[in-house]
């Protein structure tokens, strides 16, 4: 699986940086909090998790689609004086890319510790499903080639790619629905998840059609929330309370040919992960078979499947079998999105899936297991409804971030 391709991250940095703190707000609808307030809440929770004070953080990164607050506001509110910050445009695929940027700016001596946040009222303000004020905005220039055709929301934009996978490989809607089934099982054991109900394949297929091949339950939730992860040097992370999650390798916003006009190139059912894998695995120095759990972005059931396939967790075209044979469920060979992900826990443009894997690698996933005398959960590994969701012996995780079929990011973490 490994190759000698030159990669974006110096292999010399492998495991030299770590995620030392993670935090989030509640996953809500009708939050009644501004994105500035949500971000402040999430960053503070991550600081508390790491045991860091405002004086310990001097870098900040955030991403948004003109729907959020800015680092200067959040840092100032928390009493953090910044030596470096940047607020970038983007949605899914940003989290992993910004971890890579954080390691680079620390390595360059620009700062020491970087808090990365995403704050959004994805239900109450700028709706992630694409309805609301943005859907009625005037259509200008390049947008005419898409929005004038009623081709605008994420689901509408990606659906032609998903349809091609069904056509090219004989993948069935029932196989893909198994992603929702698995993630809803995971969410039922996650006290934080917005939706904790377990679903069956039949219920997914019986839910109303949004745009073929996407049923309502093939689509993620819309929620209000903020999330934060903190990146620093591994040697510094080792002085802190939490066990560090080491950054083994990272790929940031790797693109298919033609990037935004990716659909001019083909095959259409091959997504950016096909290219990103050739950076990810050499950077990490391992391959998919050594990964214990995945966080494949589930804006839709299909996105999780397509990426697992193109990053090599199964052969091309066999994603339908891989996601429906039990492998991606807790107790299976390689569970995916053990928090319930975007389909169930909440929509964060990718960051909650990284937070989940950090906690998995620590062995500290929050579930309904009894709390031991040291304050840590005593995991039962009983994955029945309302039970455990800790993956036994989790050492290596892979996050596969999705922006569009044409671009993606990825990151391999190792238990420190």
């Amino acid at each position: 699986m490994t190759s000698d391709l030159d990669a974006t991250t110096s292999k010399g940095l492998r495991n030299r940086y770590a995620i030392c703190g993670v935090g989030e707000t509640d996953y809500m609808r009708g939050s009644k909090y501004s994105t500035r307030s949500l971000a402040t809440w999430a960053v503070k929770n991550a600081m508390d998790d790491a045991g860091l004070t405002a004086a310990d953080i001097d870098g900040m990164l955030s991403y948004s689609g003109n729907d959020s607050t800015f680092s200067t506001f959040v840092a100032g509110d928390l009493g953090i004086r910044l030596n470096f910050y940047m607020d970038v445009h983007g949605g899914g695929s940003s989290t992993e890319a910004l971890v890579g940027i954080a390691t680079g700016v620390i390595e360059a001596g620009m700062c020491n510790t970087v808090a990365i946040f995403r704050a959004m009222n994805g239900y109450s303000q700028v709706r992630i499903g694409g309805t609301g004020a943005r859907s009625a905005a005037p259509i200008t220039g390049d947008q005419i080639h898409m929005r004038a055709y009623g081709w605008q929301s994420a689901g509408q934009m990606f659906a032609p790619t998903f349809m091609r996978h069904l056509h090219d490989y004989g993948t069935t809607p029932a196989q893909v629905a198994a992603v929702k089934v698995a993630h809803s099982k995971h969410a039922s054991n996650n006290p934080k998840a917005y939706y904790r109900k377990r679903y069956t394949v039949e219920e997914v297929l019986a839910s109303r059609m949004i745009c073929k091949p996407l049923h309502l339950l093939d689509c993620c939730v819309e929620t209000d929330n903020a999330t934060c992860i903190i990146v620093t040097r591994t040697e510094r992370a080792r002085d802190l309370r939490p066990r560090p999650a080491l950054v083994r390798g990272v790929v940031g916003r790797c693109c298919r040919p033609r990037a935004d006009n990716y659909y001019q190139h083909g095959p259409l059912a091959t997504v950016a992960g096909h290219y990103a894998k050739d950076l990810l695995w050499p950077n990490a120095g391992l391959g998919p078979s050594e990964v214990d759990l995945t966080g494949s972005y589930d804006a839709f059931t299909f996105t999780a499947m397509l990426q697992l396939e193109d990053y090599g967790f199964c052969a091309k075209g066999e994603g339908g079998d891989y996601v429906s044979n039990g492998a991606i469920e807790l107790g299976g060979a390689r569970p995916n999105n053990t928090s319930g992900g975007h389909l169930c826990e909440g929509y964060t443009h990718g960051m909650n899936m990284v937070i989940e894997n950090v906690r998995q690698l620590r062995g500290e996933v929050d579930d309904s297991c009894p709390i031991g005398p040291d304050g840590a959960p005593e995991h039962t590994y009983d994955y029945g409804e309302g039970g455990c969701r800790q993956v036994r012996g989790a050492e290596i995780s892979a996050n596969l971030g999705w922006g569009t079929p044409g671009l993606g990011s990825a990151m391999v973490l190792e238990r420190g």
Partner: protein
Amino acid sequence: MPLRGEYLGMTLTIDDVDEENREFFRYCHAGDFRLQRGRKSGLLRYPPTTACPWTSDRESDWVSVEGKGIVHTYTEVRHPIQPAFRDLVPYLILLVDLDTQKGEPTEHEALRVAGNLVTPDGAFAPPETIERVGIGTRVRMVFVEVCEGMSIPHWTIDEEAEQPDPPWRYPDA
């Protein structure tokens, strides 16, 4: 003055500085589907852009292209997102491989042109027509006027062409 028109109740505009799109839609308004052909590569490209994606050069010529092709993929929208489409569901969004330059310069590339499925006179196709269309259906281009200087391309079934029997369609339960 920006070009400005109303289409299905939506406002469509093209800025003065957006010369590529002004030309593209002006040709469409004249009933002449034209794409840019890079002078170095000799290859056509869609949508309009400033540089050739194969040779990076800016020099190109607008060339008339036959508006015929085959449905590469599609989606059938049942739940409208934009208010303008609220009364038009279900509707099809088609990605059509033009016959011209299909499979060039590499096997899986094509001039893949978007549009809705419409009747020959440009109205949104009724459900019984939608049911006839899938991957593999042969279609031809029709233009719908937005305003003076702007029409947008759409697709209608090419009734004179040999059609797959049946085309591939989403396997409804």
